[in-house]
């Protein structure tokens, strides 16, 4: 409920889209750390869909790729300042 004189922040309610569908990426490589870094936060946790806006199908693929990368020590399980 925006107040009378409060500006509506345009940036917030621009529609989110699934970057995998848009760019036509079909496979998320678990061996590629700099691509996966976009989907985890500073502590190394996987970002939720409501922030990244990815579709359910690709969020599962991202989560699986991140967990595989963690298993072979390409990504840490927990980190303090990752980026």
């Amino acid at each position, binding site marked *: 409920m925006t107040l009378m004189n409060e500006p509506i922040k345009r940036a917030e309610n621009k529609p989110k889209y699934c970057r995998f569908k848009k*760019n*036509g*990426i*079909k*496979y998320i*490589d678990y*061996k590629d750390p700099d*691509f996966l870094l976009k989907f985890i936060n500073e502590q190394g946790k996987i970002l939720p869909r409501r922030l990244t806006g990815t579709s359910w199908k690709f969020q599962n693929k991202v989560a699986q790729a991140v967990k*595989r990368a*963690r*298993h*072979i*020590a*390409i*990504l*840490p*399980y927990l*980190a303090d300042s990752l980026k």
Partner: protein
Amino acid sequence: MKHYETVFILNPVLSEDQAKDTVEKFVKVLTKAKAEVINVEKWGLKKMAYAIQNKSTGFYNLIEFSTSSSDLINTLETEFRRDESVMRFLTIALDKHAVVYNERRRKGEFNRNKKQTTRKEEVAA
């Protein structure tokens, strides 16, 4: 012919040639079982994100192969478990998108070496 890909980490204590012939040993296990080895990659000594067996670096290797026999994976994994110089291994089955991706990666479309590759290039290619 299902496609598989296995990544394993060797103990950094090994010398270069010891690491080389352990990789040869695993490739031999595959070729002996008539699997078709598509690609063997050695990423060399890499820093790991966290310590395994309190070592912070390791020799990373990747073997991509395709086989029709399903029990080859069990024999390969028991081979990994038996060899104590292997600190960690991960074998996955590749679906069709992954196979296409690996071929493009081998052709260097994602130009692994040049740092400033952006995802758009990857999609455009």
